[in-house]
């Protein structure tokens, strides 16, 4: 792997262990989690712990005529009952807008609804009880009278203004964006071929193993709030609890514990969680809320739900001239705080046409309010939509011209020697991508020609197989351009503190969090490599605002690229400080020393000179033996923010092989391939599994997952039996390979890898299905592609 050459951790020419970068070492926390010895929020036991349950609106849109909590308050074990007004006394409302999303608007949202509920599942009262079960028993005694209001569930009706959900806002448009490149019309007029198609993407959600959970513990004695919260962004939440509850930031501590998956679901401010924190302040005692599975479906953010029309213009030789996009997406009744619900649509505008070298682009995008659950950023935000519609229309164009889809892509992908590339028409900039290397590698890996031959042979036997390709780009390592410039107090910078312990152990504290994805493991690898210790000497602490440096946390595929670089820089600095101590102890020249395998060694001869345990002993306990005025510094902190590019884009390409049963509309996934370029691969096993997990979630979007709402705004399938998450029985083998183009912005060279699978898989699977259906004259343009939708496309039902 060329990554190691990019990472000169040791002096050139010396024969030393190059470290753990690029090695598939098992992560330290896996054994603990698999033995059931993880510690999640629901595992915490506190004296005087109260449990809060929420009385939620049964209607999608209704005025609260009467809300009588008196009977509920008298039930066994009930400590207190609160309505929205009571909680609002302690927690200010929020409006989720960002300065750089021009014109975005939303209405004030309270922790608990006041006067009116705007989606089915919105909390309208809180019951606090000695146990969760007692709280749930008391829910049945809440007396509520409702005046049902018209529920706006269709995004076109919302855009047309059939009703206005928040009359103060004037209309239902949360955010809109239009974009047209110079000379678009003239260039478009010269096109030989224009293809156009409309796509629908269902609303879905990220189903985490562990539900949302928060335990807020307000201490009136010192006006402090400790929040145990399975969030992805503890420092962001520290700021938000502080500002909305009126507690100085220094008095708020957010601790994450183990987190059972997040996928973006746990990076947002949830009204019921803010209410839980406020109630802890109100009652001056610890209060816990854990969303159960039914609540998760009703209130964890949903995502996607787009209706898009896209046109592609090209020459008859097959060169893409441009794209023309019209996207409409619906987000529920409020923009989600503080990241807003305008980002996904904005990403679709930014990323459409992403892998290609066209020069012209026109885009129109509307984000509208509806009376369904809120939507916001979920794994791969906007990418699955942008990549799927781009790749589907690219296949249409290839078919129109009569070019093989792989060949058409080869013709149009941005050349590998065109970087840095600033001509992309939506304005995004690429440092260095490897589309053609990835394409070549993919076609070889899947034996594309052979598969096409097999497909043709099987078609003659009435077996309908399809091969679908989807090239992709992915936003990773975001700079402050993502949120900070818009006024959100969300850190794009992360920090790491490394401390050599007296025994020669290494403690790493990083502001990026561990959600089960293995961040702790790669930080240990980087730290061990940078310092020169073996992996067993490293302990990693994340997810505690009281302990780690300040930083952004986990989102937008930033953990390895940003947090990892902070760890690397801190490690290099600590190693240098350790060598200073060693030189002082040994009365040697620092330049002659190195640290390898927990020992200070002679750089040339590798002869061991001093163990790190001995170094630590002397530095901490016998500094009197060191030269006068020498002070060891064995704790080091470094920070890193990407500055050169707004985002460090990655790229890749996926392929899907499916077999469609034209009688039943069932799709069998036979195999899936992904070649991607996340720069330096720190742990191949972890990256591969991130890709595989991401592909599976993308397959979920393409074939299975959809939040189904009735016309009255009732969620129809909010449970694990009826909401179809992809499961192992249907998943194909997923072959993963890499091209490594390290980013030059950091010494580590790592880009993000967590979202690539989800970004590309929906397009690859949709294209594969349509390739299989092509001889039958059918196309499916709605995701998920259910058997019924495929049968409809075939005209069989």
């Amino acid at each position, binding site marked *: 792997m060329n990554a190691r050459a990019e990472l000169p951790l040791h002096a050139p020419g010396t024969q030393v262990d190059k470290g753990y970068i690029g090695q598939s070492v098992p992560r330290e926390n896996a054994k603990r989690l698999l033995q059931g010895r993880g510690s999640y929020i629901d595992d915490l036991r506190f004296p005087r712990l109260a449990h809060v349950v929420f009385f939620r609106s049964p209607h999608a849109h209704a005025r609260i005529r009467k809300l009588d909590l008196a009977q509920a308050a008298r039930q066994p074990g009930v400590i207190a009952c609160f309505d929205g007004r009571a909680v609002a006394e302690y927690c200010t409302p929020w409006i989720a807008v960002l300065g750089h999303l021009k014109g975005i608007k939303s209405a004030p949202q309270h922790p608990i609804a006041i006067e009116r509920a705007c989606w089915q599942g919105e909390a309208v009262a809180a019951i606090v009880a000695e146990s969760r079960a007692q709280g*749930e*028993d008391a829910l049945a005694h809440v007396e509520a009278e409702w005046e049902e209001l018209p529920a706006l569930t269709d995004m076109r009706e919302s855009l047309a203004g059939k009703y206005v959900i928040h009359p103060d806002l004037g209309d239902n448009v949360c955010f809109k964006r239009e974009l047209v490149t110079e000379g678009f019309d003239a260039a478009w007029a010269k096109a030989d071929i224009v293809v156009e198609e409309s796509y629908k993407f269902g609303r879905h959600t990220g189903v985490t193993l562990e539900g949302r959970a928060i335990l807020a513990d307000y201490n009136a004695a010192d006006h402090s709030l400790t929040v145990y919260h399975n969030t992805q962004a503890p420092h962001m939440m520290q700021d938000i609890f502080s500002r909305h509850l009126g507690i100085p930031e220094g008095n708020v501590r957010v601790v994450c514990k183990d987190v059972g998956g997040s996928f973006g679901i746990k990076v947002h401010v949830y009204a019921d969680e803010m209410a839980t924190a406020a109630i802890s302040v109100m009652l001056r005692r610890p209060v816990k809320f854990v969303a159960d599975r039914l609540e998760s479906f009703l209130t964890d953010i949903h995502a996607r739900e787009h209706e898009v029309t896209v046109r592609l213009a090209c020459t008859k030789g097959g060169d893409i001239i441009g794209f023309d996009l019209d996207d409409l997406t619906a987000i529920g009744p409020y923009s989600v705080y503080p990241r807003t619900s305008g980002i996904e649509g904005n990403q679709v505008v930014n990323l459409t046409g992403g892998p290609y070298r066209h020069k012209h682009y026109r885009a129109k995008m509307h984000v509208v309010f509806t009376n369904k659950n809120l939507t916001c950023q979920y794994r791969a935000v906007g990418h699955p939509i942008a990549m799927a519609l781009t790749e589907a229309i690219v296949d249409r164009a290839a078919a129109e011209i009569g070019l093989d889809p792989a060949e058409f892509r080869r013709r149009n992908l941005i050349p590998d020697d065109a970087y840095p590339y600033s001509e992309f028409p939506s304005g995004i900039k690429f440092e260095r991508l490897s589309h053609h290397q990835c394409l070549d590698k993919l076609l070889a890996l899947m034996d594309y020609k052979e598969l096409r031959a097999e497909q043709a042979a099987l078609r003659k036997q009435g077996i309908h197989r399809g091969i679908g390709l989807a090239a992709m780009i992915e936003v990773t390592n975001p700079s402050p351009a993502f949120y900070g410039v818009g006024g959100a107090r969300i850190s794009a910078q992360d920090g790491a503190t490394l401390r050599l312990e007296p025994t020669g152990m290494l403690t790493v504290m990083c502001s990026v969090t561990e959600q089960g994805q293995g961040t702790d493991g790669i930080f240990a690898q980087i730290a061990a490599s940078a310092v020169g210790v073996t992996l067993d000497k490293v302990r990693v602490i994340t997810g505690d605002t009281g302990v780690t440096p300040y930083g952004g946390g986990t989102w937008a595929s930033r953990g390895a690229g940003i947090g990892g670089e902070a760890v690397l820089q801190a490690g290099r600095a600590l190693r240098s400080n350790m060598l200073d101590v060693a030189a002082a102890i040994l009365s040697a020249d620092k330049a002659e020393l190195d640290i390898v395998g927990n020992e200070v060694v002679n750089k040339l001869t590798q002869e061991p000179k001093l163990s790190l345990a001995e170094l630590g002993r002397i530095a901490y306990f016998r500094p009197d033996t060191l030269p006068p005025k020498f002070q060891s510094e064995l704790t080091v902190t470094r920070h890193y923010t990407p500055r050169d590019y707004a985002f460090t884009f990655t790229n890749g390409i996926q392929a899907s092989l499916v077999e469609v049963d034209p009688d039943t509309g069932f799709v069998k996934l036979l195999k899936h391939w992904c070649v991607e370029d996340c720069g330096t691969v720190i742990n191949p096993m972890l990256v591969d599994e991130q890709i595989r997990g991401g592909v599976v979630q993308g397959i979920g979007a393409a074939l299975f997952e959809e939040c189904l709402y009735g016309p009255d705004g009732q969620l129809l399938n909010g449970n694990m039996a009826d909401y*179809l998450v992809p499961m192992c029985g249907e998943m194909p083998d997923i072959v993963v390979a890499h091209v490594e183009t390290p980013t030059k912005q950091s010494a580590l060279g790592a880009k993000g890898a967590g979202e690539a699978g989800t970004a590309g898989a929906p397009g690859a699977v949709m294209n594969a299905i349509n390739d299989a259906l092509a001889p039958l004259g059918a196309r499916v343009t709605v995701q998920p592609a*259910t058997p019924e939708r495929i049968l409809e496309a075939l005209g069989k039902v």
Partner: protein
Amino acid sequence: MKPPSFAYARPGSLAEAFDLLERHGEDAKVLAGGQSLIATLNMRLSSPAVLVDVTGIPGLAGIAAAKDKVRIGALTTHRAVERSAEIGATLPLLAQAARHIAHVAIRNVGTFGGSLAMADPAAEWPACCVALDAELVLASRAGERRVKARTFFRGLYETDLKPGELVTAVEIPVPGKDHRASFMELARRVGDYAIVGVAALARAGAGKSGKALTDVRLAYLGVGPTPMLATQAMAAAEGKPAADAAAAAQAALDRDLKPTADLHTSAAAKMHLARVLTGRALAALAA
């Protein structure tokens, strides 16, 4: 997702169980494997005052094969049916169907009798029992009575069980040596409730024009309020060679089935898929 509080009783004999059921009447629910009941309690869709756990009653589990019929105790788990060599040899329809029931963890706990008493129209065992013309043994303080599966299922989650009565066993006649069985279903994911399924049985004998199907039986799941025995389609297929039988049964199926839409599939698509499965099952029987 916490169940409302309930009392729990675990009788050690049928007599004790009958006492409890009599005493608590409609406030009591019978708990066997609990794979449906516990979920409804946790979702607060049901709030019985007492759960009568019958799994401690001896003699209600097990498979006993006689010459012409097989007796399956009500508490026999799905997994035990799936793994039984006797079932595999005598009632291959059940062996084929068993692996479609939910997931292994559920099959390890859920019971044969519980599934029948629950009478979920999308469940596998009720359709199989209807196709095989099984007889349910029902016991109460008044004694035992026997009811044909074909009359046991009355409506959506509605059976012939009377208050105080328990399913104790099912007796299934063993089809003849020439009979073939085919169980097929279409589910979005392995273990999901099927969109539609069919339990098919027929004798595949040498007819005048090749292999003809006789004693054709087709029972469907997921396409009606109960398991649906498709008598018109069966009659249409009777005595015909496989290809003709399939076409005839498919054409007649409209008269047997009036499916209603589920969350993911329209009534029309269900009907279409039922026809497709009919063709495939009959082809499998003749293969």
